[in-house]
């Protein structure tokens, strides 16, 4: 048995230490930021905060949530994430189901598949896409953030491969019981494909929550800006509109920024552990075929 030998034991110990070290490096930056956000402004500005808050307080958070623009954009983000994910799941999963049929059952399947795959290979680019939204009159409209990326071809392929791995007998039994394709999809395929559906739901939600660029170019008023775009203007462009100037002057920009960064990441941190067990399964099943 190799794992009883001395060299392997030494290796094993070192391995555990290295892996633990690398994992901590993945989390440490976020943790440090959290500590800065809770700290006293002078300590944060002097760079004295490392692994523990100095002069613990919630001021930065109170200030961030007191900003009217922040709360409005939080609501825009919630709306786009919920509506966008629901629509994307409905449209993509039903299309994937139809496309998972063999070509002799669903004639035209291959043509449809290529129709979708071509958009993965080639895109018109930024400017024509922008002009399209302009011409459709979707500027400042929530659907400008939802519709363009709604059909995710990669997700359709992932689901399609998953649906093909569902035993044929299940579908045959449903047909014999008199169910049509739609009924079979809803009552048989959706329930047995929950790991794959959950994976795609996770990716879509995270995608919506994190996407900032579309909001930046399509949303002109502050009241329509999703949180990620609002954060981008605050964190990267250093915009401080909506904050009380007197308070800003007293408060360290650093603690304020840290709290904003942490809040923008919080929803992701909250859903992540619940969905993690699904996505590993989902990716593996969708990507590795027999």
């Amino acid at each position, binding site marked *: 048995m190799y*794992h009883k030998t001395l060299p392997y034991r030494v290796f094993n110990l070192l391995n555990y230490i290295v892996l633990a070290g690398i994992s901590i490096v993945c989390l440490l930056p*976020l943790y440090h930021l959290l500590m800065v956000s809770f700290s006293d402004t002078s300590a944060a500005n002097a760079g004295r905060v490392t692994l523990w808050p100095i002069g613990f307080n919630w001021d930065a958070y109170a200030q961030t949530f007191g900003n009217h623009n922040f709360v409005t954009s939080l609501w825009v983000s919630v709306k786009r994430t919920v509506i966008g994910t629901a629509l994307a799941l409905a449209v993509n999963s039903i299309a994937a189901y139809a496309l998972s049929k063999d070509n002799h059952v669903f004639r035209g399947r291959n043509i449809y598949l290529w129709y979708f795959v071509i958009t993965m290979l080639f895109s018109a680019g930024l400017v024509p896409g922008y*002009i399209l939204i302009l011409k459709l009159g979707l500027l400042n409209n929530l659907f400008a953030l939802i519709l363009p990326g709604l059909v995710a071809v990669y997700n359709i392929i992932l689901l399609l491969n998953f649906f093909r791995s569902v035993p044929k007998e299940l579908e045959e039994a449903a047909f014999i019981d008199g169910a049509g394709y739609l009924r079979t999809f809803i009552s048989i395929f959706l329930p047995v494909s929950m790991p794959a559906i959950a994976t795609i739901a996770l990716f879509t939600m995270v995608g919506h929550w994190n996407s900032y660029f579309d909001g930046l170019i399509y949303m002109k008023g502050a009241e329509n800006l999703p949180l990620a775009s609002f954060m981008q203007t605050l964190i990267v462009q250093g915009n401080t509109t909506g904050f009380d100037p007197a308070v800003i002057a007293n408060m360290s920009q650093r603690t304020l920024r840290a709290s904003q960064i942490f809040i923008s990441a919080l929803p992701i941190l909250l859903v992540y552990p619940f969905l993690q067990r699904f996505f590993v399964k989902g990716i593996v099943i969708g990507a590795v075929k027999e």
Partner: protein
Amino acid sequence: MDAMTSTDHNLKTTPKARKRSGYRVPLVLHLMVLPAVLLVFVFSYLPMGGIVMAFQDYKANLGFTGSPFVGLKHFRYMFENDYFMKITMNTLIFACSKIILNLIVPFSFALLLNEVRHMGFKRSIQTMVYLPHFLSWVTLSGILIDLLGQTGVVNQLLTFLFGMKPIFFLGDGTWFRLTIIFSDVWKEFGFNTIIFLAALSGINPALYEAAEVDGATRLKQTLHITIPSLTPILIVVATLALGSVLNANFDQVFNLYSPMIYQQGDIIDTFVYREGLLSGQFSFATAVSLFKSLIGLVLIIISYRLAYRFAGYRIF
């Protein structure tokens, strides 16, 4: 088997209904694809018509039909432009370094993780290293700007440990490049191990048992069983990555760069954004992104062909 299914399905119906069902059954399937087809038509295919701009001097008030055609003017200007060559080089440097490191690091990490026998430890490690993948570049650039600043933790640590002067990580061209490359690896390596871990779990344990009986050490087992078993998936990942050698990650660069380091840090996508949407050079920006899209298309087709030839990989 599927032909059987449809016959069974039809048998229960009357002859009249059967005649109709010949159309009806596929029609449902067509309707199921319809919403996706329409959305893709509007948001992916319609904009392709806008590519005509690349060959025009597009003016918003004249539209696509009224704007004058200028042939290849924008492409000629692009290739004669030193700055365009520079950003293409930057893009290639970023993308290629990331591709190589994002293969080597996750592969090695998966091998190390595979040696962990304590399941709880293994799962905690996975949870921690996958996390950065899900954070946006807006969040992460905020973190990096804070960490790597003049009074940030990293510079403080360097001063404290080595007595070094503060480094301008985001203000010096060379350091900026390193920051872009390594922060990307930091964010993605964990998530990229998933595919290798999946392949590792698929290796037949009998191979290891046989090697054990023959007295092979764990190192020998790794070299002669584990690594050869992972080679096909490694080839697939590597060849598919070929398609993204012009994708240097817009979100990352856009949120970290500044005019100070454009010479070493600007990439094609950020350039297209500035020229197109900020300066209003619609036609020139479209020409640049068309050039990029076409090269990308060729590379993707080549990479899929290679992946299919060497590892029998197909996407569907």
